[in-house]
């Protein structure tokens, strides 16, 4: 299998690597960089567990080849909290039971961050629509919506 060189910026750090041409971005993050916070739930782009930001846009890392990340930036769950300090969203997920097993959570959090960056005061309906591509099998989604709504409120307070 052909190998290709790759230069990519992951969570703010630029690095170079040689990857198999057929390697997916999620395998590159997990197996090459040991960034195992990005999970594989289906491997065919339906469940959203592997959601990362790719040049700032949420994508399914299981559907993107690592080689196509050449010159791009990738943000993963590991970039969301610094030195154990949780973001408002992470804290709200915990306070509201927005996770149970935690397997979908990294994708949910990436998508929620993206939502609040675009729309700091989403309605519950807007939150639900933003999560339309993320499967959670544990919570029934309501507690996740609660968490995102609470985080939006906390961030608005923090900003004012």
């Amino acid at each position, binding site marked *: 299998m052909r190998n290709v060189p790759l230069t990519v910026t992951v969570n703010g750090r630029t690095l170079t690597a040689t990857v198999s041409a057929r390697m997916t971005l999620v395998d590159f993050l997990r197996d090459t960089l040991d960034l195992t916070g990005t999970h594989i739930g289906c491997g065919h782009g339906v*469940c959203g567990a592997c959601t990362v930001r790719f040049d700032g846009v949420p994508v399914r890392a299981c559907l993107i080849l690592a080689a196509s990340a050449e010159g791009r930036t990738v943000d993963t769950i590991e970039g969301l909290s610094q030195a154990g300090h949780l973001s408002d969203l992470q804290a709200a997920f915990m306070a509201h039971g927005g996770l149970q097993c*935690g397997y979908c959570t990294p994708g949910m959090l990436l998508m929620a961050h993206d939502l609040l960056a675009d729309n700091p005061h989403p309605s519950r309906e807007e939150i639900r*629509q933003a999560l*339309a591509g993320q499967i959670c*099998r*544990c919570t029934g989604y309501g507690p996740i919506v609660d968490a995102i709504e609470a985080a939006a409120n906390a961030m608005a307070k923090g900003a004012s």
Partner: protein
Amino acid sequence: MTGPAPAVRWPRLVSGRGRFIADLAVRGMRDVAFVRSPFAHADIVSVDGTAARAVPGIDAVFTHDDLAPFVQPFRGTHALFEDLVAPEQTALAKSRVRHVGEPVALVIGPDRAVCEDAAELVEVDYAPRPAIAGPEAAIAEGAPAIHEAAPDNAALTMHAGTDAVDEAFAEADVVVEATFAFARHTGVPLEPRGLIAAFDPSDRSLTVHHSHQCPAAMQQAFATLLGLDAHRVTVICPDVGGAFGIKQQLYADELAVVAASVRLGQPLRFLADRLESMASDIQARHHIIKGRLGAARDGTLLAIDVDDILAIGPYSQYPRTSLGEGRAMLSCTAAPYRVGAVRARSRAVFTNLGMAGHYRGVGHPIATAVTEGLLDKAARALKTDPVALRQKNLWPQETGPNTTALGTTFEALPYGPCLDALNAAIPSQSLEAWRDSVRAEGLLAGFGHAVFVEMTSRGPAFYGDGRVDVSTRDGCFIRLEPSGAVRVSASVTEQGQGVETAVAQVVAHTLGVPLDAVAILTGDTAVTTHGGGTWASRSLAAGGHAAWQAATQLKTEIVQIAGVLLQAAPKTLDVKDGAVVDRADGRVRMALAELAATCHFRPHHLPDGRQPALEAVASFGPFDAPFRAGCGVQLCAVTIDPDTGIVRVVRHAVAHDCGVVANPLFVDGQLKGGIAQGLGAALTEQLLYDEDAQLLSGSLAEYKMPMAPEMPDIEIIHAGGDERMDEDAPPRFVGVGEAGTAGAPAAVQNAINDALAPRAAELFEMPATPERVLAALNRRASV
């Protein structure tokens, strides 16, 4: 100490620092891929791995004969059901495959991709046989037999109740009947199955990191089937990404990987992908049921008769069998109601579909949908209010325990208070007003109730007397550290439900230390007591009781030692918030850290010469009743677009009782998550197979689970009262993990039929897909 504390694992899980199987590595570990049968039923003529073995990097290609010297075949038997046909199963298929996805060969190499490349080169010559693709096909005249031992494809037929039901029907003023069809489901934990098996030939020890609910049961199974010493087999369950019963039993493919590790003396990792999960994960809920209900004109329930065909897979699931759903049917049907006579028959039949076993709710959702569906149909026939009909016939709490007409004894349960609480919060009159307003807009609208019972925390009678080596107990070990904090190891296991944290909360509350002073470890058979783990909503009922017991014992020792150190009578002392206090006025007498440090570092200063243990262990499983029962009522309101057939759930509520609510975050989480799975069952989820039993729904795009936009906010009413933990008595914990799935499909079904009633249509098939709803509207009601 009890209350809505977040789970102890959540900080790392929201930080991307989970420890799921795929996140772990063992030095020297190799990956695997399976060659799986593309046929539902075929003879294996030959398997040739020559080309695959030649792929650079491939270590081995194993077939049945390569692993047979290392692993025994197995059969899912049960001593209480001697008539059960339990055909032999092998880790890799021997000479015949009986479902799509059955493992035939195992390829071992440096990574999954290379293993898959090689797996494609394994040449298997199959001679296909006719396949059985569903319950009707299994019992059809002249159907081919999947096993010689079961010429009619019947695994077991079970009966409950009596033929007195025939006389009772003759007395009935109104008789309603319906045929209920339930689709085949699977649990779809978002983390697929996986394990890392590491056998060390130097001391014949085996360590398996396993995404599983029941590590002790797997320790037992691996030791038995691989001929290893059980005390040299360790099973560790790290973070587990959901389970729902799917990670409760033994899988042939997982056993093959462990056997290959034994053969090679090398660590091997297996991570199921989603396609092989859909084909090989345990499946459930595939029933066709004819139900009949007879009532007197005044609404008294006189007779219920149900006849169930359950399509299991091609084998009896090891070790627990595939009988659970049928058994639950026979216990739960009509259980909340005092009925003159009830009769139930459940036939488990072999098919060439995937393996069948336990999925959250095991049979409860089926029994509830049948009972509640018949009840609502009777209410329509009697032109009476369905809530009033229920109130008239529910077992009163005061008369409990009650033995149902099917012969199962349930403790006194607050069915009536739950229905009252739900009705008070959301009165039928307000729902009727809503329904009228929606109907005025041209949509169909309806609402429906469903009373459910939930059998949780089974005692040892079923598996123990069935000679199935599955523990129904759970244990808790606590030790006081020199710092005054405690370490706990518990045999309950965690897959997201929060039980690990709830056990820590019980210890903190009972012992008198802050929750933050408790570190808990679960899911490691080398460290914890041999216990059940997680299944049938038992973890807190059993494990919480054990935690209370162990903490009480440790507290007794602490108070005795404090009495010696403080020269006070132990009974005048208590432990609160990490300190020994005066029981009378709460005055702090001594920090726990001071007592612990004295005992650990200066024990010779204890005046009575004692050797302090500062640890306690207890195990518990219920003996007093076969299970702990919970109950409740669910309410669902739907709109249906008559042009598209699309059903939308606009409201869903539950009123329930589960005893002491140790942590409302977790109890609510179980209810909401369970209801979501129940709504999926009712509306969208189905494993699709064609008539040759070929799997058609191999991805999550085809197996449609509920997503955020269509899920309502679920309303929860804790109707069991404000029951708290009492310091001096074991807490009354009742499981709540099955409740959501038990009642939700029935409530949706009843709401749909309420909506369809003005059009004289009805629908008793799940899921209620738009196609089925439109067909029902065209078909009109049969009565």
